[in-house]
Protein backbone atom coordinates (compact mmCIF):
# COMPACT_ATOMS: atom_id res chain seq x y z
CA UNK A 1 0.00 0.00 0.00
CA UNK A 2 1.35 3.48 -0.70
CA UNK A 3 0.98 6.60 1.41
CA UNK A 4 -1.54 9.04 -0.04
CA UNK A 5 -1.94 11.61 2.72
CA UNK A 6 -2.20 12.62 6.36
CA UNK A 7 -5.01 12.91 8.88
CA UNK A 8 -3.70 16.07 10.52
CA UNK A 9 -5.53 17.04 13.73
CA UNK A 10 -4.90 18.50 17.15
CA UNK A 11 -6.34 15.34 18.75
CA UNK A 12 -3.32 13.05 18.68
CA UNK A 13 0.03 13.40 20.45
CA UNK A 14 2.55 14.51 17.78
CA UNK A 15 5.36 12.16 16.82
CA UNK A 16 7.64 11.75 13.79
CA UNK A 17 10.03 9.10 12.60
CA UNK A 18 11.39 7.67 9.40
CA UNK A 19 9.30 5.38 7.21
CA UNK A 20 8.50 2.20 9.17
CA UNK A 21 7.42 0.47 5.96
CA UNK A 22 10.66 1.10 4.07
CA UNK A 23 11.47 -1.59 1.56
CA UNK A 24 14.63 -0.02 0.13
CA UNK A 25 17.27 2.64 0.81
CA UNK A 26 15.33 5.14 -1.32
CA UNK A 27 12.13 5.14 0.67
CA UNK A 28 13.65 4.72 4.15
CA UNK A 29 14.19 8.48 4.46
CA UNK A 30 10.52 9.41 4.10
CA UNK A 31 9.14 11.11 7.17
CA UNK A 32 6.12 9.55 8.85
CA UNK A 33 3.80 11.36 11.28
CA UNK A 34 1.21 10.22 13.79
CA UNK A 35 -1.77 9.63 11.47
CA UNK A 36 -1.32 8.67 7.85
CA UNK A 37 -3.54 7.38 5.07
CA UNK A 38 -2.46 4.55 2.76
CA UNK A 39 -4.23 3.06 -0.26
CA UNK A 40 -4.25 0.00 -2.48
CA UNK A 41 -6.32 0.98 -5.55
CA UNK A 42 -6.32 -2.56 -6.99
CA UNK A 43 -8.29 -3.75 -3.96
CA UNK A 44 -10.17 -0.47 -3.43
CA UNK A 45 -8.66 -0.34 0.04
CA UNK A 46 -7.75 2.71 2.09
CA UNK A 47 -6.12 2.38 5.52
CA UNK A 48 -5.84 5.02 8.24
CA UNK A 49 -2.89 4.29 10.52
CA UNK A 50 -2.83 5.90 13.96
CA UNK A 51 0.53 5.90 15.69
CA UNK A 52 -0.04 7.79 18.92
CA UNK A 53 -2.53 8.19 21.73
CA UNK A 54 -5.26 10.79 22.07
CA UNK A 55 -4.62 14.09 23.80
CA UNK A 56 -6.72 14.36 26.94
CA UNK A 57 -10.40 15.20 26.28
CA UNK A 58 -9.84 15.15 22.48
CA UNK A 59 -10.98 11.60 21.71
CA UNK A 60 -14.61 12.47 21.00
CA UNK A 61 -13.53 15.37 18.79
CA UNK A 62 -11.39 12.89 16.88
CA UNK A 63 -14.36 10.51 16.44
CA UNK A 64 -16.42 13.36 14.99
CA UNK A 65 -13.67 14.39 12.57
CA UNK A 66 -13.03 10.81 11.51
CA UNK A 67 -16.68 9.97 10.84
CA UNK A 68 -17.17 13.28 9.06
CA UNK A 69 -14.27 12.35 6.78
CA UNK A 70 -15.76 8.89 6.23
CA UNK A 71 -19.08 10.42 5.22
CA UNK A 72 -17.62 13.10 2.98
CA UNK A 73 -15.31 10.61 1.24
CA UNK A 74 -18.26 8.23 0.65
CA UNK A 75 -16.43 5.12 1.75
CA UNK A 76 -18.57 2.07 1.05
CA UNK A 77 -17.55 0.26 4.25
CA UNK A 78 -15.41 1.00 7.29
CA UNK A 79 -13.65 -1.70 9.26
CA UNK A 80 -12.19 -0.82 12.66
CA UNK A 81 -9.44 -3.10 13.95
CA UNK A 82 -9.37 -2.98 17.71
CA UNK A 83 -8.85 -4.93 20.91
CA UNK A 84 -10.34 -5.38 24.35
CA UNK A 85 -8.80 -6.29 27.70
CA UNK A 86 -8.61 -10.05 27.97
CA UNK A 87 -8.87 -9.85 31.77
CA UNK A 88 -12.39 -8.42 31.42
CA UNK A 89 -13.73 -11.53 29.68
CA UNK A 90 -16.59 -13.43 31.26
CA UNK A 91 -16.58 -17.23 31.66
CA UNK A 92 -18.08 -17.90 28.22
CA UNK A 93 -15.61 -15.59 26.51
CA UNK A 94 -12.69 -17.26 28.30
CA UNK A 95 -13.63 -20.60 26.76
CA UNK A 96 -14.11 -19.42 23.19
CA UNK A 97 -12.09 -17.87 20.37
CA UNK A 98 -10.47 -14.53 21.32
CA UNK A 99 -11.79 -12.86 18.14
CA UNK A 100 -15.06 -10.94 17.94
CA UNK A 101 -16.93 -8.83 15.42
CA UNK A 102 -19.62 -6.14 15.52
CA UNK A 103 -21.68 -4.76 12.65
CA UNK A 104 -23.77 -1.60 12.49
CA UNK A 105 -27.40 -2.32 11.50
CA UNK A 106 -26.99 -1.08 7.91
CA UNK A 107 -23.79 -3.14 7.54
CA UNK A 108 -25.56 -6.28 8.80
CA UNK A 109 -27.90 -6.15 5.82
CA UNK A 110 -25.09 -6.13 3.28
CA UNK A 111 -22.57 -8.63 4.75
CA UNK A 112 -24.74 -10.89 6.93
CA UNK A 113 -24.40 -13.94 4.68
CA UNK A 114 -20.65 -13.59 4.26
CA UNK A 115 -20.08 -13.25 8.03
CA UNK A 116 -22.37 -16.24 8.67
CA UNK A 117 -20.32 -18.37 6.30
CA UNK A 118 -17.15 -17.48 8.25
CA UNK A 119 -18.63 -18.82 11.50
CA UNK A 120 -17.48 -15.81 13.45
CA UNK A 121 -18.48 -14.95 17.00
CA UNK A 122 -20.36 -11.70 17.54
CA UNK A 123 -19.31 -9.53 20.49
CA UNK A 124 -21.66 -10.39 23.33
CA UNK A 125 -23.69 -7.83 25.21
CA UNK A 126 -22.63 -7.67 28.84
CA UNK A 127 -24.12 -5.85 31.84
CA UNK A 128 -23.74 -2.10 31.41
CA UNK A 129 -22.98 -1.82 35.11
CA UNK A 130 -21.29 -5.11 36.04
CA UNK A 131 -21.70 -4.51 39.79
CA UNK A 132 -25.49 -4.29 39.49
CA UNK A 133 -27.33 -7.60 39.28
CA UNK A 134 -30.33 -6.17 37.39
CA UNK A 135 -28.33 -3.98 35.05
CA UNK A 136 -29.29 -3.64 31.37
CA UNK A 137 -27.15 -5.34 28.77
CA UNK A 138 -25.18 -3.44 26.19
CA UNK A 139 -22.11 -3.67 24.02
CA UNK A 140 -19.02 -2.88 26.11
CA UNK A 141 -15.47 -2.86 24.80
CA UNK A 142 -13.23 -2.30 27.84
CA UNK A 143 -9.76 -1.21 26.75
CA UNK A 144 -11.03 -0.49 23.24
CA UNK A 145 -10.41 3.25 23.34
CA UNK A 146 -12.72 5.05 20.91
CA UNK A 147 -14.02 1.81 19.34
CA UNK A 148 -17.34 1.82 21.16
CA UNK A 149 -17.86 5.53 20.50
CA UNK A 150 -17.14 5.05 16.78
CA UNK A 151 -19.49 2.06 16.65
CA UNK A 152 -22.34 3.85 18.45
CA UNK A 153 -22.00 6.99 16.33
CA UNK A 154 -21.89 4.92 13.14
CA UNK A 155 -25.07 3.11 14.20
CA UNK A 156 -26.90 6.41 14.59
CA UNK A 157 -25.34 8.01 11.47
CA UNK A 158 -26.10 4.89 9.38
CA UNK A 159 -22.49 4.33 8.43
CA UNK A 160 -21.62 0.84 7.23
CA UNK A 161 -19.10 -0.13 9.88
CA UNK A 162 -17.66 -3.40 11.13
CA UNK A 163 -15.51 -3.75 14.22
CA UNK A 164 -13.04 -6.64 14.34
CA UNK A 165 -11.36 -7.10 17.68
CA UNK A 166 -9.26 -9.50 19.68
CA UNK A 167 -9.08 -9.98 23.44
CA UNK A 168 -5.49 -9.12 24.32
CA UNK A 169 -3.25 -8.70 27.33
CA UNK A 170 -0.59 -6.07 27.99
CA UNK A 171 2.82 -7.09 26.74
CA UNK A 172 4.15 -8.20 23.40
CA UNK A 173 1.19 -7.66 21.09
CA UNK A 174 2.97 -8.60 17.85
CA UNK A 175 1.33 -12.06 17.70
CA UNK A 176 -2.02 -10.38 18.47
CA UNK A 177 -1.57 -7.96 15.57
CA UNK A 178 -0.74 -10.81 13.21
CA UNK A 179 -3.75 -12.76 14.52
CA UNK A 180 -6.04 -9.78 13.96
CA UNK A 181 -4.88 -9.19 10.40
CA UNK A 182 -5.33 -12.91 9.66
CA UNK A 183 -8.88 -12.59 11.03
CA UNK A 184 -9.49 -9.63 8.70
CA UNK A 185 -7.97 -11.59 5.85
CA UNK A 186 -10.49 -14.42 6.31
CA UNK A 187 -13.10 -11.90 5.19
CA UNK A 188 -11.31 -9.57 2.77
CA UNK A 189 -8.92 -12.14 1.29
CA UNK A 190 -6.26 -9.46 0.79
CA UNK A 191 -3.59 -12.17 0.67
CA UNK A 192 -4.74 -15.44 -0.78
CA UNK A 193 -3.19 -18.60 0.72
CA UNK A 194 -0.38 -19.98 -1.46
CA UNK A 195 -1.87 -23.44 -1.71
CA UNK A 196 -4.87 -25.27 -0.39
CA UNK A 197 -3.10 -25.54 2.94
CA UNK A 198 -5.47 -23.94 5.49
CA UNK A 199 -2.54 -23.08 7.80
CA UNK A 200 -2.27 -19.37 8.59
CA UNK A 201 -0.34 -17.28 6.09
CA UNK A 202 1.53 -15.39 8.83
CA UNK A 203 4.77 -15.74 6.90
CA UNK A 204 3.35 -13.60 4.10
CA UNK A 205 2.94 -10.51 6.30
CA UNK A 206 5.90 -8.12 6.48
CA UNK A 207 6.98 -6.85 9.89
CA UNK A 208 7.54 -3.07 10.01
CA UNK A 209 10.93 -1.80 11.24
CA UNK A 210 9.15 0.20 13.95
CA UNK A 211 8.47 -3.11 15.74
CA UNK A 212 12.19 -3.72 16.35
CA UNK A 213 13.53 -3.48 19.90
CA UNK A 214 10.06 -3.19 21.45
CA UNK A 215 11.52 -3.87 24.86
CA UNK A 216 14.55 -1.60 24.64
CA UNK A 217 18.12 -1.59 23.40
CA UNK A 218 20.61 -4.41 23.52
CA UNK A 219 21.69 -5.49 27.00
CA UNK A 220 25.10 -4.40 28.31
CA UNK A 221 27.35 -7.49 28.52
CA UNK A 222 28.59 -6.28 31.93
CA UNK A 223 25.16 -7.21 33.30
CA UNK A 224 26.13 -10.87 33.08
Amino acid sequence: MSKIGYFYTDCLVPMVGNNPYATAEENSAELSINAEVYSLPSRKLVALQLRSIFIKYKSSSFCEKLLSWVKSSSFAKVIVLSSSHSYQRNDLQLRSTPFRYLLTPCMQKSVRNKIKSLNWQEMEKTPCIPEMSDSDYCVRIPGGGITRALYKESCSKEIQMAVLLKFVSEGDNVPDALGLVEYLNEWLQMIKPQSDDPAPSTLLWKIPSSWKLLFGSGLPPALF
Partner: protein
Amino acid sequence: MNSGVWEEVGCAKLWNEWCRTSDSVHGLSPTEAYCVFYRLKSNPAVFLCQCSCYVAEDQQYQWLEKVFGSCPKKNVQVTVLTCRHTTDYKSSEPAGSLPSPFLKALKTQNFKDPVCCSLLEQPNFVHDLPAAVLSYCQVWQLPAILYLCYTDVMKLDLLTVEAFKPVLSSRSLKGLAKNIPQSTETLKKLTAANEVQSNIYT
Protein backbone atom coordinates in the same frame (compact mmCIF):
# COMPACT_ATOMS: atom_id res chain seq x y z
CA MET B 1 21.57 36.36 22.18
CA ASN B 2 22.66 39.73 23.63
CA SER B 3 25.64 40.04 21.30
CA GLY B 4 23.86 42.80 19.36
CA VAL B 5 23.46 40.64 16.27
CA TRP B 6 19.88 39.60 17.09
CA GLU B 7 16.88 41.72 18.06
CA GLU B 8 14.01 40.36 20.11
CA VAL B 9 10.79 40.61 18.08
CA GLY B 10 8.25 38.69 20.08
CA CYS B 11 7.46 35.87 22.45
CA ALA B 12 4.92 33.13 22.99
CA LYS B 13 3.77 32.91 26.60
CA LEU B 14 2.29 29.77 27.99
CA TRP B 15 1.76 28.00 31.28
CA ASN B 16 1.59 24.35 32.20
CA GLU B 17 2.43 22.24 35.24
CA TRP B 18 6.05 21.93 34.08
CA CYS B 19 6.71 25.67 34.26
CA ARG B 20 8.67 26.20 37.45
CA THR B 21 11.59 28.38 38.40
CA SER B 22 13.83 27.54 41.26
CA ASP B 23 14.00 30.46 43.65
CA SER B 24 16.41 30.22 46.57
CA VAL B 25 13.96 32.11 48.81
CA HIS B 26 10.62 30.58 47.84
CA GLY B 27 11.74 27.24 46.40
CA LEU B 28 9.89 26.09 43.26
CA SER B 29 7.24 28.58 42.18
CA PRO B 30 4.83 28.60 39.24
CA THR B 31 5.74 31.06 36.54
CA GLU B 32 4.86 31.82 32.95
CA ALA B 33 7.16 30.33 30.41
CA TYR B 34 8.32 31.93 27.21
CA CYS B 35 9.45 31.04 23.76
CA VAL B 36 11.37 34.08 22.58
CA PHE B 37 11.63 35.08 18.92
CA TYR B 38 14.65 36.92 17.58
CA ARG B 39 15.36 38.38 14.15
CA LEU B 40 18.81 38.72 12.60
CA LYS B 41 19.52 42.44 12.20
CA SER B 42 21.67 41.93 9.12
CA ASN B 43 19.05 39.72 7.41
CA PRO B 44 15.48 40.30 8.63
CA ALA B 45 14.29 37.16 6.85
CA VAL B 46 16.10 35.02 9.43
CA PHE B 47 14.23 34.27 12.66
CA LEU B 48 15.32 32.29 15.66
CA CYS B 49 13.08 30.87 18.33
CA GLN B 50 14.56 30.01 21.69
CA CYS B 51 12.25 27.70 23.56
CA SER B 52 13.36 27.24 27.14
CA CYS B 53 10.13 25.79 28.45
CA TYR B 54 8.13 22.65 27.93
CA VAL B 55 5.22 23.10 25.53
CA ALA B 56 2.63 20.54 26.63
CA GLU B 57 1.03 18.21 24.10
CA ASP B 58 -2.32 19.99 24.27
CA GLN B 59 -0.61 23.35 23.61
CA GLN B 60 1.56 22.32 20.68
CA TYR B 61 -1.08 22.60 17.95
CA GLN B 62 -2.09 26.12 19.04
CA TRP B 63 1.58 27.11 19.35
CA LEU B 64 2.14 26.05 15.75
CA GLU B 65 -0.95 27.85 14.48
CA LYS B 66 0.16 31.06 16.22
CA VAL B 67 3.77 30.86 15.05
CA PHE B 68 3.36 29.50 11.54
CA GLY B 69 -0.21 30.56 10.85
CA SER B 70 0.62 34.04 9.69
CA CYS B 71 3.94 33.33 8.02
CA PRO B 72 4.05 32.75 4.25
CA LYS B 73 4.31 29.10 3.23
CA LYS B 74 6.64 29.85 0.32
CA ASN B 75 10.41 30.27 0.57
CA VAL B 76 10.48 29.17 4.18
CA GLN B 77 12.96 26.70 5.57
CA VAL B 78 12.87 25.47 9.15
CA THR B 79 15.72 24.02 11.21
CA VAL B 80 15.03 22.54 14.64
CA LEU B 81 17.80 21.79 17.14
CA THR B 82 17.02 19.66 20.15
CA CYS B 83 18.51 17.16 22.59
CA ARG B 84 17.48 13.89 24.12
CA HIS B 85 19.11 11.59 26.64
CA THR B 86 20.98 8.61 25.16
CA THR B 87 18.71 6.25 27.09
CA ASP B 88 15.94 7.34 24.70
CA TYR B 89 17.89 5.93 21.75
CA LYS B 90 17.11 2.36 20.80
CA SER B 91 19.69 0.27 19.07
CA SER B 92 20.85 -3.31 19.08
CA GLU B 93 24.08 -2.03 20.66
CA PRO B 94 23.92 -1.66 24.46
CA ALA B 95 23.18 1.94 25.52
CA GLY B 96 26.50 2.51 27.29
CA SER B 97 28.57 1.49 24.28
CA LEU B 98 27.49 4.31 21.96
CA PRO B 99 29.95 7.20 21.53
CA SER B 100 28.01 10.00 23.16
CA PRO B 101 27.02 12.73 22.30
CA PHE B 102 25.96 11.99 18.73
CA LEU B 103 23.77 13.74 16.19
CA LYS B 104 20.83 12.32 14.23
CA ALA B 105 18.51 14.03 11.75
CA LEU B 106 14.96 13.82 10.44
CA LYS B 107 13.86 15.80 7.40
CA THR B 108 10.63 16.56 5.58
CA GLN B 109 9.99 15.48 2.02
CA ASN B 110 10.68 18.94 0.60
CA PHE B 111 14.05 19.37 2.32
CA LYS B 112 16.60 18.86 -0.42
CA ASP B 113 19.86 20.17 1.09
CA PRO B 114 22.60 17.81 2.24
CA VAL B 115 22.19 16.53 5.79
CA CYS B 116 25.08 16.94 8.25
CA CYS B 117 24.73 13.57 9.94
CA SER B 118 22.98 10.24 9.55
CA LEU B 119 19.20 10.03 9.67
CA LEU B 120 17.38 8.77 12.75
CA GLU B 121 16.70 5.15 12.05
CA GLN B 122 13.66 3.15 13.10
CA PRO B 123 12.49 2.15 15.66
CA ASN B 124 13.49 5.56 17.04
CA PHE B 125 11.09 8.46 16.81
CA VAL B 126 10.70 12.00 18.13
CA HIS B 127 7.85 13.50 20.12
CA ASP B 128 7.08 16.83 21.88
CA LEU B 129 7.35 20.23 20.19
CA PRO B 130 10.10 19.28 17.70
CA ALA B 131 7.83 16.49 16.40
CA ALA B 132 4.87 18.88 16.23
CA VAL B 133 6.95 21.37 14.19
CA LEU B 134 8.22 18.71 11.81
CA SER B 135 4.73 17.22 11.38
CA TYR B 136 3.36 20.65 10.50
CA CYS B 137 6.13 21.22 7.98
CA GLN B 138 5.65 17.78 6.42
CA VAL B 139 1.89 18.23 6.04
CA TRP B 140 2.22 21.78 4.65
CA GLN B 141 5.16 20.72 2.44
CA LEU B 142 7.68 23.10 3.99
CA PRO B 143 11.36 22.10 3.82
CA ALA B 144 12.43 21.40 7.37
CA ILE B 145 15.14 19.50 9.19
CA LEU B 146 15.45 18.41 12.79
CA TYR B 147 18.89 17.83 14.29
CA LEU B 148 18.69 15.77 17.43
CA CYS B 149 21.66 15.39 19.74
CA TYR B 150 21.64 12.33 21.97
CA THR B 151 23.67 13.15 25.06
CA ASP B 152 24.25 11.52 28.42
CA VAL B 153 24.24 14.69 30.51
CA MET B 154 21.25 16.51 31.94
CA LYS B 155 22.69 20.02 31.79
CA LEU B 156 24.26 22.01 28.99
CA ASP B 157 27.92 21.10 28.56
CA LEU B 158 30.65 21.85 26.05
CA LEU B 159 30.67 18.40 24.45
CA THR B 160 26.95 18.48 23.72
CA VAL B 161 27.07 21.96 22.22
CA GLU B 162 30.08 21.03 20.09
CA ALA B 163 28.17 18.03 18.73
CA PHE B 164 26.04 20.57 16.84
CA LYS B 165 29.08 22.13 15.11
CA PRO B 166 28.60 20.22 11.82
CA VAL B 167 25.17 21.88 11.57
CA LEU B 168 26.82 25.30 11.42
CA SER B 169 28.34 24.41 8.08
CA SER B 170 24.96 23.58 6.53
CA ARG B 171 23.70 25.81 3.71
CA SER B 172 21.08 27.57 5.79
CA LEU B 173 23.16 28.19 8.91
CA LYS B 174 26.69 28.84 7.65
CA GLY B 175 26.05 32.55 7.23
CA LEU B 176 25.14 32.83 10.89
CA ALA B 177 28.19 31.46 12.66
CA LYS B 178 31.54 33.17 12.88
CA ASN B 179 34.28 30.70 12.24
CA ILE B 180 36.63 31.93 14.95
CA PRO B 181 39.45 29.95 16.56
CA GLN B 182 38.24 31.12 19.94
CA SER B 183 34.85 29.42 19.47
CA THR B 184 35.81 26.61 21.86
CA GLU B 185 36.89 29.14 24.50
CA THR B 186 33.68 31.15 24.03
CA LEU B 187 31.59 27.98 24.35
CA LYS B 188 33.48 27.01 27.51
CA LYS B 189 32.56 30.35 29.13
CA LEU B 190 28.89 29.97 28.17
CA THR B 191 28.63 26.43 29.47
CA ALA B 192 30.60 27.11 32.68
CA ALA B 193 27.68 29.21 33.94
CA ASN B 194 25.64 26.01 34.20
CA GLU B 195 28.17 24.04 36.14
CA VAL B 196 27.42 23.11 39.70
CA GLN B 197 28.66 25.94 41.87
CA SER B 198 29.14 23.94 44.98
CA ASN B 199 29.26 20.37 46.04
CA ILE B 200 28.88 18.45 49.24
CA TYR B 201 32.51 19.02 50.13
CA THR B 202 32.29 22.80 50.41
